[in-house]
C-alpha cells in the first residue's frame, strides 16, 4: 500500500512539478484543506484542547484564512512545529502558512526567503521571577541562572541584553515550554525569559500565579506574525489581507454577531461594504469569492473578539491590549484601507 501511495505521489508530482511552487492557492483549493504550522502547544496561542481541537490566537489566523479561501474554518490541517522545524516545514511546502508566534526579523524576511504578511501580536521579551527573590528590575539579574526556550530569537536578545549591561549570567537552554516551567518552578533557574505574552500564559498555569512577577523591562521588539514562502505573492496577499480584514473589522465595528446581517446587503459605510463584498469586487482581485472577508470574520470574529476569547483579560492568560490596541485607541494596529 505504502508503495502505491509512493508511486502515485511520484507520478502525480512529475506531472505538476514546476507549477507547484508558484500557486499555493490552487494547491490549497485542490486539497480542500489549509496546512497551517503552529506550535507544539502554548496556552492561549495554539494548543489542542482536551478533545484534540486546536484553539488559540494563532490558530484563529489559520482558521480565518481557511474560511476566506475555502469557506470553512474547520478545513485546516494543523501541523505542530518546533523552533527548529518551522522554517523548513514552510520552505519545503509541508505547510502553506506558518502562524507560530514567529518574530519578524530582517534576516528571516530576506536571507531565509520568507514573507511576513503582517503582525498579529506586538510582543517583547521579558523575564519572570519568583517574588521571593526580591528582584524588581532585570538590571538586578547579574549572575543569575536564566532558563531559555531554545530555537528562537530569545537567546540572541538575552546575550545582547546582558552584554550591553556588562552583566554575567548562566543560560540554561530548554527544549519545550513545559520543561522550562519545570526547571523554573523547581528553582533550577532564577528567572525564565521568553516573550512577555508567553510569560503571562505560562504564569497562568502556575499553582499560585501571584507568587511570580513579570519584570517591567522588555528587552526586545518582537513583532509576531504569520508568514508565507517568498515568491508566491498572490498567496501572500491573501494571507496579508485576511489578517488586515480581521483588524479592519474591529475598527469598523464588524463582529461575528453582526457580520451575517451586514454582509447580506450594502449598508451605509462604503468601506464596510467593500470589506464585506457588497460593493465593488475586492475578492476577485485576490482570486477569492466576494464575501471572503465576511467568511473570515464569521469564523472567529474580528481581531478584538479573537483577542478577548483567547488571550484577553478575561482568560487565564490575562493579557491587556497594550500595544495591540487599534491605532484609534493608542495602539499599533493599523490596517491599510480596503479600497
Amino acid at each position, binding site marked *: *500500500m*505504502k*508503495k*502505491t501511495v509512493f*508511486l*502515485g*505521489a*511520484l507520478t502525480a*508530482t*512529475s506531472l*505538476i*512539478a*514546476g507549477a*507547484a*511552487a508558484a500557486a499555493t492557492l490552487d*494547491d490549497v483549493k485542490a486539497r480542500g484543506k489549509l496546512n497551517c504550522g503552529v506550535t*507544539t*502547544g*502554548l*496556552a492561549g496561542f495554539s*494548543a*489542542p484542547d482536551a*478533545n*484534540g481541537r486546536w484553539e488559540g490566537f494563532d490558530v484563529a489566523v489559520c482558521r480565518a484564512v481557511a474560511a476566506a479561501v475555502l469557506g470553512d474554518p474547520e478545513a485546516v*490541517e494543523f*501541523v*505542530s*512545529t*518546533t523552533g*527548529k*522545524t518551522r522554517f*523548513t*516545514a514552510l*520552505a*519545503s*511546502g*509541508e505547510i502553506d502558512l506558518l502562524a507560530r508566534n514567529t518574530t519578524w526579523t530582517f534576516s528571516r524576511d530576506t536571507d531565509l526567503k520568507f514573507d511576513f504578511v503582517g503582525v498579529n501580536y506586538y510582543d517583547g521579551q521579558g523575564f519572570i521571577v519568583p517574588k521571593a527573590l526580591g528582584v524588581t528590575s532585570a538590571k538586578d539579574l547579574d549572575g543569575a541562572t536564566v532558563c531559555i526556550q531554545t530555537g528562537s530569537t530569545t537567546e540572541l536578545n538575552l546575550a545582547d541584553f546582558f552584554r550591553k549591561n556588562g552583566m554575567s549570567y548562566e543560560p540554561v537552554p530548554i*527544549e*519545550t*515550554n*513545559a*520543561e522550562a*516551567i*519545570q526547571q523554573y*518552578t523547581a528553582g533550577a533557574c532564577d528567572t525564565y525569559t521568553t516573550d512577555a505574552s508567553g510569560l503571562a500564559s505560562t504564569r*497562568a*498555569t*502556575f*499553582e499560585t500565579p501571584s507568587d511570580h512577577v513579570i519584570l517591567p523591562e522588555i528587552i526586545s521588539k518582537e513583532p509576531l506574525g504569520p508568514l508565507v514562502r517568498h515568491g508566491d505573492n498572490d498567496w501572500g496577499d491573501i494571507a496579508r489581507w485576511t489578517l488586515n480584514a480581521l483588524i479592519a473589522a474591529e475598527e469598523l465595528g464588524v463582529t461575528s454577531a453582526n457580520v451575517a446581517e451586514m454582509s447580506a446587503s450594502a449598508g451605509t459605510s462604503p468601506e464596510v461594504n467593500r470589506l464585506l463584498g457588497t460593493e465593488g469586487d475586492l475578492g476577485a482581485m485576490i482570486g477569492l469569492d466576494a464575501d471572503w472577508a465576511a467568511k473570515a470574520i464569521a469564523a472567529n470574529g474580528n481581531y478584538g473578539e479573537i483577542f478577548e476569547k483567547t488571550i484577553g483579560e478575561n482568560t*487565564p492568560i490575562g493579557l491587556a491590549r497594550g500595544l495591540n490596541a487599534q491605532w484609534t485607541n493608542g495602539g499599533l494596529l493599523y490596517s491599510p484601507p480596503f479600497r
Partner: protein
Amino acid sequence: MSDSHAQSVAFVRDTVIPESPPPALETGVVKWMRSNLFSGWFNTLLTLAAIWFVFMVLSVVVPWFANGVWEASDIRQCREIMAGSGGGCFAVIADRWQQLLFGFKYPSEEYWRPTLAFVLLFIAIAPLLFSKMFPRWMLVLTALYPFVAYYLIWGGTILAPLVALLGFVAGYFAYARVVRRSFAGAAAAGVVVAVVVWTLGGYVSAAAPGFMAFEPVASREMGGFMLNLILGVVCVSLSLPLGILLALGRQSNLPVVKGICVVFIEFIRGVPLITLLFVANVVLAYFLPPGTNFDLIVRVIIMITMFASAYIAEVIRGGLAALPKGQYEGAESLGLDYAQSMRLIILPQALKISIPGIVNVAVGLFKDTTLVSIISMFDLVGMIRGPILASTDWNGVYWELLGLAALLFFVVCYGISQYSQWLERQLQTDHR
C-alpha cells in the same frame, strides 16, 4: 545381650540409630541463608548493604503507590486529596489514558480499531515466532496481517489494502511461473505484474472511496504508544528484506555492489539516529521533487527503516559468516547459480542463526522510536513532554507519567528479550 561379646567389647550397637534431623544450622531456610547470604564476612556485608538498599527503595516506592490518588480532575485537586502524604498522583494516568495510548488526534470513537489491530498482531506473529507449535498454513494469517492492520488503523475504503494485497498475490504468481527459468527474470516479472495490478486497482479504489470504508485517519493523527508500536513494527518488517539485501551485497564479490553496501552500512551505523531524524524532519524535503509532500511519519519511517536495515545487515552478515564454508561449496558443486544457492541453501540457515540478533536489534529499535518525540511528534514520550505536561491541569506530574512510559516499554521489551533467549536455547539444542 549376648555373653560372648561382654568380655571383649564394652558396648556394641546392633540396631541402626534412627535418622535424626540435620543440625538446625545445616537445613532448610537457615542453611540456604548461610550458604547464599552469609557465607563469609564479605558476603554478609554485601547482604546487609543489599537489604538496606532494598529497604530504601521500598520506603520511597511503597508509600508512593499506597497513598496514590487515582481520581482527581487536575493536579491541584490531587494535592488536596493527598494532603502531603507523599503519594503519587496517578489520576493523570486515569484522566489521559486514551491520549497516552492513542495520541490526542485519533478520533475517540474509533479507538477499537487500533486496539483490535494490536490484538490481531499477536495472532499474526504467533505462527512466525513459534513455528513449531502452529501449523504452517497459519503463516497465511501473518501475510494477511499488514493489509488488515492498515485497513483498521488508517481506515478508508477496504479496496485500497485489497488492491495492494492483490498486487502482491499476482506478483507472486508471476514470479512463481518464471522462477524456474531465471530468478532475476522472475523478480522483474513479479514487480511488473504487481505494479500493473496496483495501477489498475488504484483507479478502482479511487472510484469507490466509500466502499466498505472506515472513517479515514491521516498518519499525522497517530500518536501515543500506538505510534511507537506502529513505527517499531513497520520499520522492523520493512528493514528485514533491505537488511538481507545489504548483507548479501556486502558479502558479494562484485566490487561496486560491495562498495555501495559497505559505505551505506558504515555511514548509517556511524551516525546517531537523532541526526537521521533531523534529516527526515528538516533536510529530506529538499531532496524530494518540488511539490512532493510526505507526511512526517512517512519520512520518519523511511529514515528509521534505513537505520534498522544497516544494523540488521550486520547481524545477518554475522550469520552468513558463521555458516561453514562447506555449505557454500556444496551449493556450488550442485551447480546452483548464485540466486539459487542463496535462496535455497545459504539464507535459510543464515537467517535461522541470526534470529536472536535480529530480535535484539528489533528491541533496540523499538526503544529508539521514543526519539521521534524530539522532532515534535507526539509518541508516548512526546505526549508526556508536550500536551500533557504543558496543560494547566497536569503541569508538574512527572514521575507517574515517566514511570508509566518506562513500565509500558519494559513490558514489551522484556517480553521480546525473554522470547529471544528462549529461542536461543531452542536453536542451541538443534545444533547439538
